[in-house]
């Protein structure tokens, strides 16, 4: 027994906390567990309709209780004293503490052995298979091929390994039965005398289905890959197109900024030039105004002088006229010399 797992490994902690899919409270009172096992019992009745069932490794007897509830002669054994002790009161009598390495009493229409043999050492497991084979012709079997995290799984084996060991005892898979509602690897073994023809036919039938599925899935996978690849390409070209567009946009904006700065520069030049022009014109205007004022002043002066000069001209003209008159008067009068001569010479010639 050193290689197996003793009763102590399956205490309250095992059932209530750490194990069994994380459901709390592994008991008949738990509705979810109860519903699960009642449904399982229904399926079993539907598939094989047994009268008597032995559940090897029955734990707290929930499956036994469900089968009993369906009116079947059900009983169970388990190595865990705790499990049996903590079983529901209605099922307690149908259960007993026992190891699967010990031969079972009696013969059953069906023996269930669900998730049990992986907890036993390899030698114990072979003994258990022997005992099961001795007690029935029909086995509801499930043993996790993985789930290595569970510490008491000391003997996980692939499904074909268990099938081979059952085949050694004359049991073969019922390929017409699908137990995947119990577990992906659950199988119904039946003791039958089969010809090689039948056996090959059964397995080829399974293999063909799987092969077909595999081929179809491969094809689907390939197509998916191609689709992904084409989508990727579309995406990439879309992205690069987008990037090219954005780069062009950036370039366009840069050109616009440059043009705007250029516009600003020339505007500034225009403003500065205009300001300079205004300043120059203002200066010119001021100078011209000064010159105008000066010219006006000169004009006033000139006018004054003109008036003055005209006055003088008038005065002089008057005087001139007066003098001319006097001259004329003098001229009209004969001169003294002439008068004297006339007197002396005695009258004009």
């Amino acid at each position, binding site marked *: 027994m050193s290689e197996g797992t003793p009763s102590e490994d399956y205490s309250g902690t095992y059932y209530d906390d750490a194990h069994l899919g994380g459901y709390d409270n592994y008991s008949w009172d738990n509705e979810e567990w109860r519903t699960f096992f009642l449904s399982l019992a229904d399926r079993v009745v539907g598939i094989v309709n047994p009268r008597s069932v032995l559940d090897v490794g029955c734990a707290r007897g929930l499956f036994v209780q469900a089968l009993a509830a369906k009116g079947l002669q059900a009983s169970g054994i388990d190595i865990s004293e705790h499990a049996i002790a903590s079983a529901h009161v209605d099922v307690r009598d149908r259960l007993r503490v026992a190891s699967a390495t010990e031969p079972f009493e009696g013969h059953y229409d069906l023996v269930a052995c669900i998730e049990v043999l992986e907890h036993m050492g390899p030698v114990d497991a072979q003994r258990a298979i022997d005992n099961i084979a001795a007690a029935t012709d029909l086995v509801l079997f499930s043993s996790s091929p993985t789930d290595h995290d569970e510490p008491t799984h000391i003997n996980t084996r692939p499904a074909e390994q268990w099938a081979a060991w059952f085949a050694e005892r004359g049991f073969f898979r019922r390929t017409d039965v699908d137990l995947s509602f119990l577990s992906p690897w659950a199988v119904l073994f039946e003791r039958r005398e089969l010809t090689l023809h039948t056996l090959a036919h059964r397995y080829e039938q399974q293999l063909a289905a799987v092969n077909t599925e595999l081929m179809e899935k491969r094809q689907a996978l390939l197509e998916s890959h191609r689709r992904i690849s084409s989508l990727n390409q579309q995406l990439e070209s879309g992205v690069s197109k987008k990037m090219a567009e954005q780069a062009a946009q950036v370039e366009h904006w840069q050109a616009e900024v*440059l043009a705007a700065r*250029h516009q600003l*520069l*020339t505007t*500034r*030049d*225009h403003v*500065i*030039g205009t300001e*300079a022009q205004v300043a120059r014109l203002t200066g010119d205007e001021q100078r011209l105004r000064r010159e105008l004022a000066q010219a006006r002043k000169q004009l006033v002066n000139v006018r004054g002088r003109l008036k003055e000069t005209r006055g003088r001209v008038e005065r002089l003209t008057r005087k001139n006229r007066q003098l001319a008159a006097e001259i004329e008067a003098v001229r009209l009068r004969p001169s003294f010399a002439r008068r004297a001569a006339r007197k002396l010479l005695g009258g004009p010639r």
Partner: protein
Amino acid sequence: MRGPLFSIVTPVYEPPLDVLADTIASVLAQDHEDWEWILVDDCSPSEAVRELIREQASADPRVRLLERGTNGHIVAASNDGIDAARGEFIVLLDHDDLLTTDALSANALQIEAHEDVDYLYSDEDKIDDEGILYDEFAKPDWSPERLRGQMYTSHLSVMRTEVVRRVGGFREGYDGSQDHDLALRVGEVARRVIHIPRVLYHWRAVVGSASADINAKPYATIAGANAVQDHMDRIGLAAEVGQGPVPGHYRITRRLDPDVRVSVVIPTIGQSDLIWGSRRVMVVEAVRSLLDQTAHDNLEVVVVYDEPTPPEVLRELERVAGDRLVLERFTRPFNYSEKMNVGCLRATGDRLVFLNDDVEVISQGWLEQLVAPLDELDVGLTGARLYFGDDTVQHAGHAYAQGHYLHPFRDLPRESYGPFGALIINREASGVTAACAAMRRDTFIEIGGFCESLPANFNDVDLCYKVRAQGQRIVYVASVELYHFESRSRERVVHDWERSVVRGRWGIPLEDPYVRGLRRAPAGRGAGAGKGPDKGSGKGAGKGSGKATRKGAAGAAGRAVSS
């Protein structure tokens, strides 16, 4: 006329008595009355010198003689005079020179008009033994960069006494260039500096005096370089000051911060031309030489090319300039201004260099020297010295005068110093050609870049006006030398409307503030009155003479700017 009291300060050491008598007569003849004259005798061996001055002092109480107990040389003697001064302004007069009769009154007029003036200087000429006046120096308006290249302000220098005392007067150790040193220090702090564009001072060329031959006093040029170096250090400009090719002229070599990003912008159409007998693609050689002649790494070359530019030219440019090249295609009709604006807006540098594609850089470190002066924020634009392919001057700064836009030193031989050293020292100018010029990027943006209403001619003239309208200086940098293979005989059509645009904005230029006494070259002109087509006429009068100080600015002839 009455006004501010001037303290004329004259250190005296053994002048010929007749010369001193002339100097005395020129002061007594002043038509401005409010002056005192402090003559500081620096232990002249002849008692007659002191006797002559005492005689004057007894006749006119405004004349004072200070007699030094020991010979202290010019700095100590001048400082004694400054200490004794009671006037508001110091007037510096040497013991053998002459003031014009209106020297003080002309200064008094300016002081009355500008109460914040701290420094006034005026034009000068020389007088020989026969009393003949010659070599008139028609000086530029206030030019701080030029003052670093030569002591151009003296004489006559008139400085606010309080400012002279504040900066510490003359400094020992700068004998021979003590006036240059003082002018630099006063110029640094002066609120306003005024140039009176009239000769108020006759400088006597007595043998042994500085005016006759500066080589007689080699210590003076060493002191001068030290004074300029001190000045650059004081105002925090990284530069090295050395001797120029003529005594009394200094070469400023600035340091450009390697982190400053520079963009050289070149417009081109990718043409080829025959230069010195071999065919070259102009823009390629321009780029090659500009890169060869600079050590500045933080550089990009923005080439704005017109569509007809051959693709192999662009590939060659890529080969020459590598990842420093930025190509900008220009598809609109030719417009130099627009091309440059597009290129400058595209440029990423803090400093922009405008460069024509028909140039070849000659001088190593050209980029650094062209760009570095822009670190002074009141410098808005810098330009270069350009030669034609036959080694005559094409450009050394613009001048705008007599209604024209001129290249005043055109056709002088390459080795010429120019009038009063104008070609060999850095100096302020009214403008520079955009064939090679540099500007801060922010200034370019602020002034609106090149005027696109001027697509071919005068756009650089307008740019220069805009820079100066912002209150910024334009500096010609003598050490930046390039060939400019502009065809001398090419008839460039200048339209009246182009000139009208510039005149409309800035008026008709009369007298250039920096290159004075210009007369227009009497060259035959095309219909647009642009550039004289034949090189035979209009040569500068000073051409060919090697001696910088012997040339009159009046001799400078102008050639029209049309590019």
